């Protein structure tokens, strides 16, 4: 309050007005600010990467509007209690929708990930990215931490059901993200180090088993990741062209809308999964480091907010949202720069494409709600 009285400058007043609005909307100032910055950069990059396609940018802006609305609504109107009660319901609805998608997909042969409700099309698997960690957090909320063996089995089941359903779509990328979001809850809940170490050989065995189960193109992606040159024009093309784009950008980049790799279509999926390479080509190392720093700030701030959560549900959910976001960033930037295999994971908040944007912003809305609606207990 001292601040209000002392500051006379208009800028200062505007700032205060802004922070008051944020507080009224139950949004976290620093987090909202940096998220907005990332989204704004995303709009500029999508304009360039799409080949100056104004319609795509308009569509992108529409997605942002929906995503921001979801974030604000969740931050403002949901409370930890409601969210906790809603978690099992969201999970069940999500599973039912996945069944619908899988069945219709089976009938209409080929990959089926979308659910068309007439007015809006979305991927039910996206719901699970939030519903799985929330259900795990809900489950652990009433139970003492760290989780017992039975708790772990239950959570593993919660994770395995939707993961398996998404794998058969087939959408390995999303399945991995769903599984990761649940595993994060298990880890944050205090999963013992001995179990973590013990699970490593089990995971390796599962990987070996999974190798025989996954689709040919998915297997090829992993093989190609190990040696991109083996398939220059096929699967290796993505990796090679992406690295050429990034590498040729140098420290300062070729300039906005001057990236030849991106502008001449050499870079595949350049406005979606490989948009990070466009940033690297046009804005160089500095541009990419800026983006990574902004992401780092978002993750750090989100973890900080999660730590301040009042109860187990809030902390676990918040932590899972923060770290899932990290997983997106790491998997995408790692894939684009060639240190991870190519998995269809978009660069969060920047890639063109609505569903993931809405999910992520909704997640941050929940995170901020959990933080801003905590009851102030005298300590």
């Amino acid at each position, binding site marked *: 309050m001292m601040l209000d009285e002392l500051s006379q400058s208009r800028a200062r007043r505007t700032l205060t007005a802004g922070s008051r609005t944020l507080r009224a909307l139950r949004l976290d100032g620093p987090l909202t600010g940096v998220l907005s910055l990332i989204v704004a950069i995303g709009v500029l990059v999508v304009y360039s990467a799409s*080949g100056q396609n104004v319609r795509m940018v308009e569509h992108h802006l529409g997605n942002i509007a929906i995503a921001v609305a979801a974030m604000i609504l969740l931050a403002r109107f949901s409370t930890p209690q409601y969210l906790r009660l809603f978690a099992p319901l969201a999970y069940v609805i999500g599973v039912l929708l996945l069944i619908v998608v899988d069945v219709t997909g089976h009938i209409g042969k080929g990959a089926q990930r979308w659910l068309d409700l007439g007015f809006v099309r979305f991927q039910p698997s996206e719901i699970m990215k939030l519903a799985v960690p929330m259900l795990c957090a809900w489950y652990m909320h009433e139970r*003492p*931490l760290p989780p017992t063996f039975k708790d772990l089995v239950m959570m593993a089941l919660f994770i395995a059901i939707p993961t398996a359903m998404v794998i058969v779509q087939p959408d390995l990328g999303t399945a991995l993200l769903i599984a990761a979001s649940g595993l994060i809850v298990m880890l944050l809940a205090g999963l013992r180090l001995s179990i973590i170490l013990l699970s490593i050989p089990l995971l390796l065995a599962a990987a070996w088993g999974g190798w025989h189960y996954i689709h040919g193109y998915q297997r090829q992606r992993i093989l190609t990741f190990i040696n991109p040159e083996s398939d220059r024009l096929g699967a290796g093309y993505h990796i090679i062209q992406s690295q050429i784009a990034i*590498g040729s950008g140098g420290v300062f980049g070729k300039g906005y*809308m001057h990236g030849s790799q991106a502008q*001449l279509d050499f870079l595949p999926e350049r406005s979606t999964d490989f948009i990070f390479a466009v940033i690297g080509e046009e804005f160089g190392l500095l541009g990419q480091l800026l983006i990574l720093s902004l992401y780092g700030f978002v993750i*750090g701030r989100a973890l900080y907010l999660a730590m301040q959560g009042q109860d187990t549900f809030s902390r676990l959910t918040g*932590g899972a949202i923060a770290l899932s976001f990290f997983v997106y960033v790491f998997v995408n930037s*790692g894939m684009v*720069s060639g240190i991870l295999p190519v998995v269809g994971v978009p660069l969060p908040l920047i890639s063109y494409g609505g569903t993931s944007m809405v999910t992520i912003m909704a997640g941050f809305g929940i995170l901020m709600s959990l933080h801003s609606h905590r009851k102030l207990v005298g300590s």
Partner: protein
Amino acid sequence: MVRRVRIKDHWGERRIFTIRGIVAGVIVAMSLLTVAARLFYLQVVRYNYYSELSQGNRVRIEPIPPSRGLILDRNGVVLADNMPAYQLEVVREQVGDTAQLNASLKRLVAIGLLDADDLPDIKRTIMSHRVYESVPIKLQMTDQEMAVFALHRFQFSGIDIHTRLSRHYPFGPLAVHALGYVAAISARDLKKIDPATYAGTTLIGKLGVEGAYESQLHGTPGYREVLVNAAGRPVHKEGAYRPKLKMRPPVAGKDLVLGIDIRAQLAAENGLAGLRGAVVAIDPRDGDVVALASTPGFDPNEFARGLTDKQYAALENDPDKPLINRALRGAYPPGSTVKPYYALAALHYGVMTPDETIFCPGYYHLPGSSHLYHCWRHRGHGSISMRRAIEQSCDVYFYNVANKLGIQRMHDFMSAFGFGRLTGIDISGEKSGLMPSPAWKRHAYKDAANQVWFPGETLIVGIGQGYMLATPLQLAHAVATLSERGIAFKPRLVIGIRPPGSTRLVRLPVDKEPGIAGITPDQWEVVDEGMEAAAQPGGTVANISVGAPYRIAAKTGTAQVFSLHQNQKYNASQIAERMRDHGLLIAFAPVDHPKLAVAVFVENGEHGGTIGGPIARKVLDAYLLPDKAAPPRTKPMTGPAP
């Protein structure tokens, strides 16, 4: 049983979360730093490498093929040029999907523009190109085909008629064995050529002048840099700016001027019409090949157009062997055409004098042998001198000459005239024929019994039979040398080269050979007189000089396809056409200052004088009396009128 009830320890749980959260934060930081390090590696450490790759990605070098040099005859008549050819081309993406493409191709078959049998090949070709590339599916369309397509054009989207330069031979099959032809570059050609020089070129010279002078005719391709996107499609700008692109125009190939005179060539081919044979005419003053014909021939335009396997097989399996260049590759027994040379040899080595006579009873036998060697005239020539022996082609006289000379001297003397070795003409494929000798026989046969040279073999070689083989080109080269009295030139088809864009012809220097030395003018005179007499009434080839305003010297020859038994008589009517004797003729004119030497060879033509005389005369007339020769008519062009 006491069930241990765990109660929630809120403080402890918060601690767990905080510690795990901090650990997670450290992992996050480390992971992001790993990515940052990777980016540093790509963008700073390997910047140059990736920068080059990116540059190579976006600029494609597109070749501009050069225009092939023209081929002209000695008077500037165009024998090979480049014509816009109209061809049907398909752009797959404009046609639609595979079903629509198939439907369009079927409609083209229905209106008669394509052959149903070719469809699988055509489809494969189309599919092997990128979707936006224009793929030729029918080359060199005729007026009628263009009209048919124009009528149905509305039914076809993505299919249209395009123009490009193709090789065109205005006279069709005329002089094809001298000119050669161009055809699609084969895998074997690719091993010999620099692919960069042939970028954008689809045709390459195969045989004849087209093949031998390929490097001169081809020219240098130009290039232009084209900005392309990842699909390889040319684009005008990348993002927001237009880069500078380089372009170098192509340099056309050099024009070649041949020694061929189109009128003499036409006369030769008209004379050979319907026959299997060859005519080679050489200007003895410089070795220029004035006519080089081999029949049957083929239309080289077909090769430029692209032959189907079936068409090519038909040419190759034709029993008349139209693809064989008989002028260079046909090695036949030269028969009596060798007699003037042996007469010279006899004078040169002093084994005979011109007026010394020999009695011809119609046969000859070696001393101490009962084997009879017949004269072609079974009742004999009686007492005969050298001039008369040449005029009448008396075999017995030349059995005597051969016997006196011996095979080694015959071999040495004939080799100096070029028998048994390549003439070195400036196109490839030439055969060397064979001038036998005891040394040759020792190498040629493995078993000792065959390695011995028999005296009888010398006699047979003395009348141009037996092991001796010569090509029509060698015959022409030898008679040219004879007519110039020992001055020899290497035969050549190309006499001048015109650089692109220039009107100045650079004449190639003549290639003089050692020739024949040590023969006196009197000795040459004897042979000339004998040959001139042969071309006069009473001679073996009297028909050649009927009404000729210039003096002609000639000598006939007949080469046995199979040998007769001792007492058998040759009866043409009883022998299958393919087993009949080959007819040969050599001639030069005018006798006093020779301007053209001709060799005529007619496969199974029986008698060289009867069949070869009129042919040689037509060629001589066409070259020596150009005003009387029929003006050449070009073959009607395939394709539309301009």
